[in-house]
């Protein structure tokens, strides 16, 4: 069932077109991330859902209820802010009670729910502390608890981990994801950190310049990006220019490139002769004489330009005969001579076509 619908929403600030016809349907209990560089419109989208911004056109529905014109306080949302936005003059318990008081919940029930949610975020015994007496991670958990204690229909998170240090950030990712799944609450998460979006989300909305570049599960976004922009934004990638030489049916194609003919997969329906880019992730390329070669693997040769040892991996830079450079990740134990001639292989399934 669709819990949250964003239907052809447009937003302009003066000359700037911030959101261009954004449509997203979010399922009940789903964790969805809005991912993109700053200025892509992800925060504006979230603020439209929260009601802090009013779309110029389009609709926003919670379930079947049209909330486009509703004030934030009438929307039944829980929101977590980048700055936490805890009330500094109130204790943890008072911060949590605020939303319950606004909803006129009886004191007994209030107390029960506060206790319950504090144990959920593992902060029992912190009721009487003030926010300034807590660490960044604890403050973040209080902010989460404050948003969840009112049992909202949607949880909105605006870069909640951006102010935490790296270790804590990694820990909180799993904490938030785990909590979200236990509560089963529909969540919209805004981030510019692609690895955060990858590990937490059911689906990711990749945004750019006010448009949705791609909407899909993390695996789909990573392995089957819709455009070169998405491929670049999510992880590292190599691209080879080419032209479709033969459609082999389904998603399989044969591509003519300046480094020879290779097999690749792409969206079905591409026509022969179309210009394409072939995207290959560095970790999916192997040195030809190592491991087990499979029938149909693409072979390509070049010479080693650079090798950067990183312990667990060697990051190689390979110059192909065509002059293109390719990044290749191999095991850290593989010894590579600089300037050595090298032969690479990769499966057609790991080469993905992007229309250019």
């Amino acid at each position, binding site marked *: 069932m669709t819990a949250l619908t964003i239907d052809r929403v447009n937003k302009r600030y003066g000359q700037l077109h911030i959101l261009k016809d954004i449509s997203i349907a979010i399922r009940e209990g789903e964790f969805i991330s809005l991912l993109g560089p700053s200025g892509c419109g992800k925060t504006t989208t979230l603020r439209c859902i929260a009601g*802090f911004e009013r779309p110029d056109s389009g609709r926003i529905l919670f379930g079947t209820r049209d909330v486009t014109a509703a004030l934030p*306080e*009438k929307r039944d949302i829980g929101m977590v802010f*980048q*700055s936490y*936005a805890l*009330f500094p003059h109130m204790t943890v318990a008072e911060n949590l009670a605020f*939303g319950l008081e606004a909803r006129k919940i009886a004191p007994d029930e209030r107390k029960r729910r506060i206790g319950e949610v504090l144990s959920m975020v593992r902060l029992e015994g912190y009721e009487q502390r003030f926010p300034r007496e807590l660490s960044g991670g604890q403050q973040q958990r209080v*902010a989460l608890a404050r*948003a969840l204690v009112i049992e909202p229909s949607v949880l909105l998170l605006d870069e909640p981990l951006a102010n935490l240090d790296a270790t804590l950030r990694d820990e909180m990712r799993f904490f938030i994801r785990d909590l979200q799944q236990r509560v089963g609450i529909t969540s919209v998460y805004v981030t510019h950190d692609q690895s955060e979006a990858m590990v937490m989300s059911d689906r990711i909305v990749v945004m750019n310049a006010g448009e949705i570049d791609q909407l899909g599960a993390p695996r789909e976004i990573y392995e089957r990006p819709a455009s070169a922009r998405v491929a670049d934004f999510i992880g590292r990638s190599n691209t080879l220019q080419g032209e479709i030489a033969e459609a082999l049916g389904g998603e399989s194609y044969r591509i003519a490139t300046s480094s020879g003919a290779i097999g690749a997969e792409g969206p079905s329906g591409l026509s022969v002769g179309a210009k394409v880019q072939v995207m290959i992730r560095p970790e999916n390329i192997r040195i030809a004489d190592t491991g087990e070669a499979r029938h149909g693997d693409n072979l390509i040769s070049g010479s080693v330009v650079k090798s950067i040892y990183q312990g667990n991996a060697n990051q190689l830079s390979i110059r192909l005969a065509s002059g293109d450079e390719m990044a290749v990740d191999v095991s850290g134990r593989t010894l590579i001579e600089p300037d050595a001639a090298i032969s690479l292989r990769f499966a057609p399934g790991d080469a993905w076509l992007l229309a250019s």
Partner: protein
Amino acid sequence: MSSVDKTIWDRLFLVLVGAIYIFLMFPIVLVMLLSFNSGEFLAFPLEGFSLRWFESLFSNKRFLDATLYSVRIAAISTIVNGVIGTLAAIYVARHARTGARNWLRVLMTGPLLVPEILTAIALLFFFYEIGVGTDYSIGIQIGHIVVTFPYVFLNVSSALFNFDRSQEEAARSLGAGPWMVFRRVTLPAIKPGIITGCLFCFVISFDIFNISLLLKSLGNNTLPLELFDYLRFNFDPTAAAIASLSIFLTFAAILIIDRTVGLRSLRF
């Protein structure tokens, strides 16, 4: 620069700062000392310790009346400015158009920028022009409110500037309407600014002279005016006793600021 040089410069700097403080504080200390002088004149050397001038102050009906009048004027100025200064600061910070904001800010702090005597003369003409005149206390009261207005406005403005507005959004997301947001979130956050501004307002209103001199109503003198009148014909330490009392009140106010909001505002 070596560390030896640094300590020498540090010490010289401390000496300079000390000298400035002595220069500023010495007259005040002197006046306070004189108020306890048992001699007949406002002069050195001190002839002995006595509280007789305080007694003379408190038994002088004119001084008592003037003190009460000053307190009344200052209290009304404080209450009025506490409300309109806060509202004005909220309007300028939140609702004014970006282009108009800086102009409004300058306009609101105008009474601080224009010499007090000019404000006084302008108001005097104005009150006579519109028929209010200076028969009643309304003129002097308005004058005090105008001159002390910027103190509340500026303090609340800076409190608003340092306030993280996402707290208000958080409150709204939790289901609070505009009034609950203001009362439970915004007001507590700007409270230190309001209190500091109000105390300044009170102390300044208690102290100002020019406005009172020109706008005072019939038969009422503020304490500084009464003191000035007194000093024209008398030169005994009663005047010093009044000064000591004013200084004491000012210090008390500063102490209150520090104890109630000064230290606490560091938490945010």
